[in-house]
């Protein structure tokens, strides 16, 4: 089972779990007092995490390029949509 632990996938998992725990340890709003800034940061972090899940766990990194472009386009659209709807009250 040791080979299970020595891969890029494992590194990505550790990094994602680490970021999740770290942002929790920094407090609900990541220690940022301004609700809007904190919200945008939280949304951006979640999208970065999603991109790692896509590229490494879902193997988009080694997939044909069109797939990566499509998922990146979705991520960008989702990010713009969520952040703008969040900020425009």
């Amino acid at each position: 089972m040791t080979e299970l632990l020595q891969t890029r996938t494992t590194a990505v998992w550790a990094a994602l779990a680490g970021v999740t725990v770290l942002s929790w340890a920094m407090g609900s709003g990541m220690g940022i007092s301004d609700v809007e800034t904190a919200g945008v940061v939280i949304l951006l972090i979640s999208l970065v995490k999603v991109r790692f899940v896509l590229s490494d766990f879902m193997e988009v990194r080694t997939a044909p390029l069109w797939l990566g472009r499509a998922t990146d386009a979705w991520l960008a659209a989702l990010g713009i949509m969520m952040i703008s709807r969040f900020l425009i009250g």
Partner: protein
Amino acid sequence: MTAVDVRTAPDTAGQPERHRRKIPGEVGIWMFIGGDMISFSFLFFLFLHYRANDTAGFTASQAHLDQNLGLLNTLLMLTSSWLVASGVRFAARQRGDLAARCFLGAVGCAAAFAVVKAVEWGGKVADGHTMSSDEFFMFYYCCAGIHMIHVVIGSGVLLSMAATVRRSKLAGNEQRNIESGATFWHLVDLLWIVLFALLYLVGQS
């Protein structure tokens, strides 16, 4: 890929040549994934849209959530995804025994996720926060509920994947189905990552 040493494989995959690029699973599963991503994006938009009309109410209701339980579930989801990704790699190297263990471990994570969710929901209902309490709790229960349907379907898929890899050598189409099933499970993980941010975190400071 079978002949490649496991420890060096990630590095060679790091500089993929054009002819080696291959779609995980098959194109059809990616249509499904894309369709589901678009539907959930609509759900995420609706949440923020309703939230914008009652920011104070949403923030007040959100304060009743236990973020530790949400965090625990996020870690369970990430771990299950990691196990599934590792299982697929083992399956590709004809290590069905290890792959089956990974997939069953992921099902274990999924079961733990469901237990945490049940405890969380039970506590909220006991406190009087039900799915008809207010708009925030409507989204809280419905979004997580729709996600939970995916968890249940995905667990079934993972169990059949474990049964498949345990049976000696994989045929080409079985390898493809394993990858498709794994891709679906990662979708369940990534949707939860966004849901966790929206339901538990956004709006707090």
